[in-house]
């Protein structure tokens, strides 16, 4: 393999290269038609449908929220009864957490990370396809059951014993438990792929200290997923579902089971989950600020250290969800300290972004406005979070609308503002066209107003004694006006999201042509075409700084060096070393296959069947075994892979 410096890609293509390029096109092209749709392993194709699917669940879960807000707009409204209301908020919360916030961040990463590290595709591309199908099945399961009036109704954290067989007969809690199974499998495989991609397929020269901050955020998030998600998967799939299916007694207090065990397992996942959602958001903000302030993010080492520290400390906070349970005083002190501590790294990152803007040459495009909105909104959520680290104060506001306000500020501020900003930033990369800036400004303004109007009054409602998850309240409690205000805010959020959808649908066809690099971006994805070719880069780029496309701050680099030597007659990616990204070997990628689809379908049968009968595991795993055999069966597409010489050869 040789490393060489060449002119930018477009100029480097000579006549000889035309043949190689055509071959590359042919080798990486998906099959045509529906078959191609089912078999593709292109990270971009899968990420696109992943993002769109996640946004569909977002919209449906958002509709649930609108219905809830209409119900609560006045005291003693009769729009929905308690049965429907409990399903509404359970499905809203479960979908937003399990089907939107985490998956959409992973989906964006599945699209962006291979491009940002200069790879041809994600690692484990078939697993990637499999993960999407699992995610899709989980979402369809949850929403289908909701629309069939058998949606889960025990809250997104499904506390036992309420979600146990004694107090929730029927299948509603089973649907919830298996939905978790699907999404956790999808989340775990995506984390594994992203880790392998980040660790082993970075462009030559992209040592760890030259990795874009967004990639760092995904690295930290993926590691967190690896440790956090098994806790809830075990608690729900293995323990709760078994309690309900085959009458084990993990959580049944009448038989010596422990209801608090569930809370520990759930929050050991549930608290890191919050950071798993918004650390990628921090990565988005770094990318947006860097691009639009036209300056490297200030304090790179501090930013990285903050992300890593947040990832670690996030695992030491879970008990602050359980301050109202019998926990020893000393234990509470520990979790208070950790909950206070975690504010430091996030605070420092916010200071670094402000410094970056201060010293940069900012352009206030819509994406940048979302990044600024993030700081303005998220900081409120962060501060109320620190307040709740105090046991004494938390016991007043725990499980009230104050907490609802707090975490919506965190999630809308920390996930949605950065995510919308990221879509405005990268939409031209996804589609080749720019989103409309005028609509974008309406979008960000209305979203900002709606968020504050909907959620700020909830702080007061909580302090005035309004608990969470009540489907109605008596008029004499005096909560009506603030609730009405919150409902108006929710409606404004709805309008702003609608504007976003209109913007995306219109710009996809009629938006201004973007070119490859409309923002003069700093990172490698902007060296690819818009939208990128199926193989991402004609030649693997070489990375010589943390902003490889810039020579200084915001100045475009003269040329992007590349390495050549990857095969064009088959799918091949460059594997580099973990720390310094020195080229190590060439890895042959698998061909497109429908095996992941069948694997997911058989597991879908297994876990959905397991809602009704334990035999589903026996039959389903047998079928999945067959699907896996097809998956792993050697094809012999490439004779040179054979270890032994074939007959007739000597």
């Amino acid at each position: 393999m040789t490393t060489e410096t060449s002119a930018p890609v477009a100029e480097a293509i000579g006549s000889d290269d035309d043949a190689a390029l055509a071959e590359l096109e042919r080798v990486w092209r998906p099959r045509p038609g529906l078959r191609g749709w089912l078999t593709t392993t292109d990270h971009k194709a899968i990420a696109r449908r992943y993002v769109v699917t996640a946004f569909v669940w977002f919209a449906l879960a958002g509709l649930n929220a609108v219905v809830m807000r209409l119900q609560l707009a006045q005291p003693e409204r009769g729009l929905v009864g308690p049965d429907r209301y409990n399903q509404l908020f359970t499905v809203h919360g479960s979908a937003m957490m399990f089907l939107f916030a985490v998956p959409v961040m992973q989906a964006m990463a599945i699209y962006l990370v291979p491009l940002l590290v200069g790879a041809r595709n994600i690692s484990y591309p078939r697993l990637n396809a499999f993960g999407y199908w699992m995610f899709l099945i989980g979402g369809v399961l949850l929403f289908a059951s909701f629309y069939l009036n058998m949606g889960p109704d025990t809250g997104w954290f499904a506390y036992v014993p309420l979600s146990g067989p004694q107090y929730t007969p029927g299948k509603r809690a089973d649907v919830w438990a298996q939905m978790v199974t699907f999404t956790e499998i999808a989340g775990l495989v995506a984390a594994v792929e992203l880790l392998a991609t980040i660790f082993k397929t970075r462009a030559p020269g992209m040592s760890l200290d030259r990795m874009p901050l967004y990639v760092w955020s995904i690295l930290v998030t993926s590691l967190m997923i690896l440790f956090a998600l098994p806790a809830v998967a075990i608690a729900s799939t293995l323990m709760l579902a078994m309690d309900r299916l085959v009458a084990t007694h993990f959580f049944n207090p009448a038989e010596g089971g422990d209801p608090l065990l569930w809370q520990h397992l759930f929050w050991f996942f549930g608290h890191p989950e919050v950071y798993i959602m918004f650390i990628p958001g921090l990565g988005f903000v770094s990318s947006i600020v860097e691009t639009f302030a036209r300056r490297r993010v200030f304090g790179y080492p501090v930013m990285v250290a903050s992300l890593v520290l947040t990832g670690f400390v996030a695992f030491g906070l879970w008990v602050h969800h359980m301050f109202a349970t019998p926990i020893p005083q000393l234990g509470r002190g520990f979790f208070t300290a950790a909950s206070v501590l975690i504010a430091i790294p996030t605070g420092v990152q916010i200071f670094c972004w402000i410094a970056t803007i201060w010293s940069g040459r900012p352009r206030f495009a819509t994406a940048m406005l979302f990044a600024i909105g993030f700081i303005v909104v998220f900081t409120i959520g962060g501060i109320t979070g620190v307040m709740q680290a105090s046991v004494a104060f938390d016991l007043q506001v725990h499980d009230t609308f104050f907490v609802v306000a707090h975490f919506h500020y965190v999630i809308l501020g920390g996930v949605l503002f950065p995510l919308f900003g990221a879509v405005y930033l990268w939409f031209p990369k996804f589609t080749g066209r720019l989103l409309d800036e005028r609509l974008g400004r309406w979008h960000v303004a209305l979203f900002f107003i709606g968020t504050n109007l909907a959620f700020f009054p909830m702080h007061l409602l909580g302090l005035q004694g309004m608990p969470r998850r009540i489907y109605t309240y008596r008029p004499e409690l005096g909560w009506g006006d603030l609730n009405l205000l919150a409902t108006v805010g929710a409606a404004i959020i709805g309008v702003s999201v609608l504007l976003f959808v209109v913007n995306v649908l219109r710009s996809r066809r009629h938006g201004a042509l973007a070119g490859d690099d409309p923002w003069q971006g700093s990172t490698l994805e902007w060296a690819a075409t818009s939208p990128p070719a199926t193989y991402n880069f004609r030649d693997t780029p070489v990375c010589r700084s943390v902003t490889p496309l810039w020579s200084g701050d915001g100045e475009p680099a003269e040329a992007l060096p590349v390495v050549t030597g990857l095969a064009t007659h088959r799918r091949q990616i460059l594997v580099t070393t973990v720390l310094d990204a020195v080229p190590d070997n060439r890895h042959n990628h698998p061909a497109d296959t429908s095996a992941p689809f069948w694997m997911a379908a058989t597991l879908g049968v297994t876990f959905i069947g397991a809602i009704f009968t334990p035999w589903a595991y026996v039959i389903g795993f047998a079928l999945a075994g067959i699907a896996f055999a097809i998956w792993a069966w050697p094809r012999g597409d490439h004779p040179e892979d054979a270890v032994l010489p074939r007959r007739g050869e000597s």
Partner: protein
Amino acid sequence: MSARPLLLGCVALAGCGGARNQSALAPEGPVAGEVASLWWFALAVATAVYLATVGALAWAAWRARRRAARGEATDPARDHRRMTVAVSVGGALTVVILLGFFVRDLAAARALRIPVTRDHVKIRVTGHQWWWSIEYPHPDPSQRVTDANELHVPTGIPVLVEVTSHDVIHSLWAPNLAGKKDLIPRYVDTLWFQVDRPGVYGAQCAEFCGHQHAKMALPVVAHAPRDYAGWLARARRPAAEPSDSMARRGREIFLSGPCALCHAITGTPAGSRVGPELTHLASRRTLAAGTLPNGKGNLAAWILDPQRIKPGTAMPATALPPADLEALLAYLGGLQ
């Protein structure tokens, strides 16, 4: 604290003060008072920190914009030095402020320790889907009182409420008096508070507990110590004897009909603990755990069709001929 008028101003502006008798912002005793003062302290610090952060952001954006508009030359080395100082100072201030908050919180935690060594009153509250069973213990079993859906406490003395649950997890929260405590099956925990002034304060279940989580409230009635003793003495008495023939017929209907399968009335054969104790039903302020004001009409509506008022409640509809209903209401209405 300086933020208090500010926030109260916001509240007044919105024209929505909320009821004062179920609010953490209107403490009625030392426990809630300590937490409220912690809150005003935290709010003041938080407001300052927030304004400083957003102010810095606005200033940074304005400065960069002005600099670009004027085409001023930049001095990257100088900028870098200044940013390093600013971020370091910001980080250090963050640490100091958080440490201050942590210490303030530890002080609050110290002040809120359960005063087991002082004179206190002990009461036991057990959560049920969706009502509260309340026991006033006494060394002499004949003096123990079991009641439901209304918590009576004396003022001026710490009240230790032992909480547990009969079924799923509930949480007892009287915002004017103290933070909440979860009621968990198999666990007994203690919530404590002290009330300064006699009055009726709202409490509500704060942990989602199923269908009627919304309608699981608990009026907390605080009496001056002497009145409390009087109330307890009355509560210890068995149910009042029916005063007329109509009420006597009502008792027959109660005892021979479905009512007695679930409800207990001391002094009668009815002793089931499935539903709330009814011995002094007529003296309570509300019906069905704070769902309806107590009164003849509401009681009739509740007996005839509780599922309309509180869908999902364990109480079934009871079809009674009007004359029987009237008699039953006469009997229950006499259970002072």
